């Protein structure tokens, strides 16, 4: 029982460690002082006002959101057919195909970013929105593939066959039988994809410019030279966005994945 108590204390402390920097940022963004202070000196929302009135921050937020949304849509369009092919069909090179699509998960993003910059500069695909999008699609597609694949089980396949036997064509079967079964996988994969794109620095940093910037890269450039409560307010805003995304994820697919199935 003593060990149980020790684990409990250790676990709570680790959770607190995980929360600490986030709390510090949110706290520091509310300070009334001109410099970054934690605990905050007084409470104000004026740094948020500064951010909202600054078009460069707003533009970066919009760029990041559109980029993440488009990257996620393309990723779903690529990953769902790929998952169907891998789960339902046999073809030569299947294993290579699936590891090709999953390998961006373990490949250093910085290496991929450098590679895309070098390759892109030879075909004129650099420092514009398309260049950003192309790279983001590569790193987020595996997330959708990985969440959709396990849902395409064998039992699922018999349902599809039954549908075909009853006279439904391939499209009807996909939309009425397959899609409802993999919907939760698509949703959770898409949320992970969106977030991964939205917070990416290592890939975007090669293709952003002063006029075309994503919010994490802009933060990165600022934080290296100066820290003030405005930066804390922008950071806190992204934390709040993350909270919203997690609550959506929890309500749609449920985050209860560490419970034992007894």
């Amino acid at each position: 029982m003593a060990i149980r108590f020790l684990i409990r204390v250790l676990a709570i402390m680790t959770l607190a460690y995980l929360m600490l920097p986030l709390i510090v940022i949110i706290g520091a963004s509310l300070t009334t002082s001109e410099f970054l202070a934690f605990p905050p000196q007084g409470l104000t929302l004026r740094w948020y006002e500064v951010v909202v009135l600054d078009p460069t921050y707003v533009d970066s937020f919009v760029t990041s959101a559109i980029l993440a949304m488009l990257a996620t849509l393309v990723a779903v369009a690529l990953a769902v057919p790929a998952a169907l092919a891998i789960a339902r069909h046999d073809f030569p090179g299947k294993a290579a195909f699936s590891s090709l699509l999953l390998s961006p998960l373990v490949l250093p993003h910085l290496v991929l970013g450098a590679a895309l910059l070098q390759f892109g500069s030879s075909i004129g695909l650099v420092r514009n929105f398309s260049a950003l999008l192309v790279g983001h699609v590569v790193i987020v597609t595996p997330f959708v593939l990985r969440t959709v694949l396990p849902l395409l089980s064998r039992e699922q396949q018999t349902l599809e066959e039954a549908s075909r036997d009853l006279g439904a064509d391939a499209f009807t079967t996909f939309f009425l039988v397959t899609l409802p079964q993999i919907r939760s996988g698509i949703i959770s994969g898409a949320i992970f994809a969106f977030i991964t794109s939205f917070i990416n620095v290592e890939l975007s940093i090669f293709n952003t410019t002063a006029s075309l910037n994503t919010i994490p890269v802009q933060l990165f450039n600022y934080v290296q030279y100066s820290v003030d409560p405005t930066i804390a307010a922008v950071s806190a805003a992204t934390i709040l966005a993350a909270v919203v995304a997690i609550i959506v994820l929890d309500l749609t697919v449920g985050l209860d994945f560490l419970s034992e199935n007894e």
Partner: protein
Amino acid sequence: MTASRSVILGLVALPLVYFTAFFLVPLMTVFVASLTDAQQGGMTFSNYARILLDEYHWSVIAVTFRLGILTTLICIVLGYPLAWYLVRIVKWRTWRRICVILLVLPLFTSNIVRSFGWMVLLGRNGLVNETLQAGGLIERPIRFLGTETGILIGLVYILLPFVVLTIGNALAKVDHSLEQASADLGASSASTFWHVTFPLSIPGVVSGSIIVFALAVSAYVTPALLSGGRVTVLAVLVFQQYSSVFNFHYGGALAITLLVFTLLMIAIASLVSRLGAR
């Protein structure tokens, strides 16, 4: 399989073309450039020789991998009890759900934001130093920023949730009847843990370690922000070459070196786990 070839082709074509064009070909470009002479063209190993025959580069590689290994070990030591707590000790579902949300929240937040939080906390007059001084544990503030310790704290922080999730998933799958049998046969709870539960959770530990290690050695943002330019890791060297020096040949060799070392460590880790599982 009754499906015609055209169906398979229809499903595979687009993803295959996309990943070939924007993943495989760019990586090949880097590889080719790394083997090409910067001045005369033609094939050469000189870019790699410049890295592998040089003491400075080995010291950077050493720092990178020391940080990777330490981060992985500390993540396991901190992550295992938390995973155990969430899966085995928490009985109230709502609390577990809140804990999982708290665990995932940092993952949904940019590395920048999280490292920035540590910059504030670890500064000379940051909360960590002030608390330690107020507690009488230290007399003068410790310098964290610009040291390997600072980077380590940041990396552990950023990568810990991955280990907790993979270990937690493995623990949740452990069959209770095996532990029951062990207890019925007279084993103490410690002995049941070390001989039954822990071995069954090893796949989770290994897959978590691989993710953490791969992400730690290739991390750029956290070392860049917490090192203040004083500690150099491999990813920082790669970035310098591509962003300011524009030497794609030497930079490519650095990128490939990082890639090869990472994949090598992952291969070793999975080999060790496969041998251990026997």
